[in-house]
């Protein structure tokens, strides 16, 4: 597998991280090295193995349907970048 500068830019775009041309080129070199390491996985045939998502084979525990939270708006919004009238403000959302 060969990564390109365009791949780097595409994934930076998906991840919403601004990246300029020279950063993209530098990142490409590093990521290519890391993917060479990652590619060693492909030498092993694991086609018949079940993927393992969790360390323990336990199942989801369920919460009773009860309201346990109280209004913490003031506290939570005391650390917000920009609020008004109880709302979090962001640059205009265009739909």
């Amino acid at each position, binding site marked *: 597998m060969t990564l390109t500068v365009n791949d780097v830019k595409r994934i930076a775009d998906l*991840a919403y991280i601004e990246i300029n041309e020279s950063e993209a080129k530098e990142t490409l070199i590093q*990521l290519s090295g890391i993917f060479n390491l990652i590619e060693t996985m*492909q030498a092993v045939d694991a086609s018949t193995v079940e993927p*393992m998502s969790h*360390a323990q084979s336990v199942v989801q525990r369920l919460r009773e349907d009860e309201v346990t939270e109280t209004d913490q708006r003031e*506290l939570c919004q*005391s*650390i917000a970048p920009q609020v008004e009238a109880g709302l979090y403000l962001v*640059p205009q959302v265009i739909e």
Partner: protein
Amino acid sequence: MFNASLKQLSSQLAEKKISSTELTTEFLNRIKKFNPEYNAFITVNEDISLAQAQAADKMLASGQAGPLTGIPIAQKDIFCAKGWLTTCGSKMLSNFISPYDAGVIERFNQAGTVNIGKTNMDEFAMGSSNETSFYGLVKNPWDVAAVPGGSSGGAACAVAARLAPAATGTDTGGSIRQPAALCGISGIKPTYGLVSRYGMIAFASSLDQGGPMAKSAEDLALLLNVMVGFDPRDSTSLQRDVEDYARDLQKPLAGLRIGLPKEYFAEGMSKDVESAIERALDEYRKLGAEMIEVSLPNAALSIPVYYVLAPAEASSNLSRFDGVRYGHRAQSYSDLGDMYRKTRAQGFGAEVKRRILIGTYVLSHGYYDAYYIKAQKLRRLIAQDFTAAYQQCDIIMGPTTPTVAFNLGEKSGDPIQMYLSDIYTSAANLTGLPAMSIPVGFGDKNRPVGLHIIGNYFMEAQMLNVAHQYQQITDWHLQSPV
């Protein structure tokens, strides 16, 4: 006093030979004196710490104290603590005063310990040298030219330099054990699911596990008694009977079968580390243990598998840092998308961005099966290797790290070399097995060497027994750089 064990501090507090306020003040003074050099703490808040100490003194006076009441504990800055700046080593959270307590912080508060400060760490726990912290690198107190390891580098440094009697850490690929080894202290990552992840800022959810870092196995046992416990707010927290992790410390080791994976004793381990490990194994032979060669055929896969799964989970876990509800927001931007992109480009450091990009890529359309699913399949093979090995032995040992602490700056420009520092440790995260590191001597440049002990699931008490018995006949854990 700053060299005292937790048990000693506990009895001095109980016998009123010292107050928590005095003890806390002493450690705060040490931090004031030494932290400018080591940079082990990001935040110290004397007012809160002393208020907690006074509250602890009241508990002690009223006879309601537990074993750790009044003892100062350094908390890794990954644990949200109400009213404390909680940065996770990142510029992104440089203004984040947590409105809530992590499960671990709650348990320590209930135990009446004192939060002595928030320790430095690699940004979002991504690093093995503590050099990725936005708040500056941490020095290894044994040799200030060396890294302390990471990501819990501030915690390891604080304990080694006696700036705190004990500390908390978190371990996603070795972040408790590797800095413990490099700083000559003891640290344990318990079985996945024993320590609540609620309020522990997520790096890779299926691998992250909190644990204690301290001078000795005995101290770790007392700390685990506080840290371990079911938390209904964490879906992956396990509901189990309460254990006393100190119950088996005194058990003799005669007949213990120690598995030595041949893959861990092959090329890669440096000579100085190897000889320290061999000497430690000799001590275990003297204690009556039997050495058995075992094999973990897929051991070499743990690094590539880890560097697919951890970044994949991280890329998603770190999407919440968008400058909308808390944390850093870029000063100027043209529109919403630009605000996101600039906020995240400015708020995250280079290593974090690198891992987000790796993770985004391996999850993206067309690559998911080849990378993410493949890595999850290999994860199972790695776990099966351990299951097979535990048919032959009780416990597994090897080196925690391939070399002693490297120099500051030595690997910071080479991510792959840095990633390979986790070569022996990441398998325990992939499998969820408990693992610990204890100091077993010194290697090149008189830098500490750690012995890696990997137990079977839920065998923490046995591991602590195995570590404690070694620490009864050796004194590496008592040595300090200060």
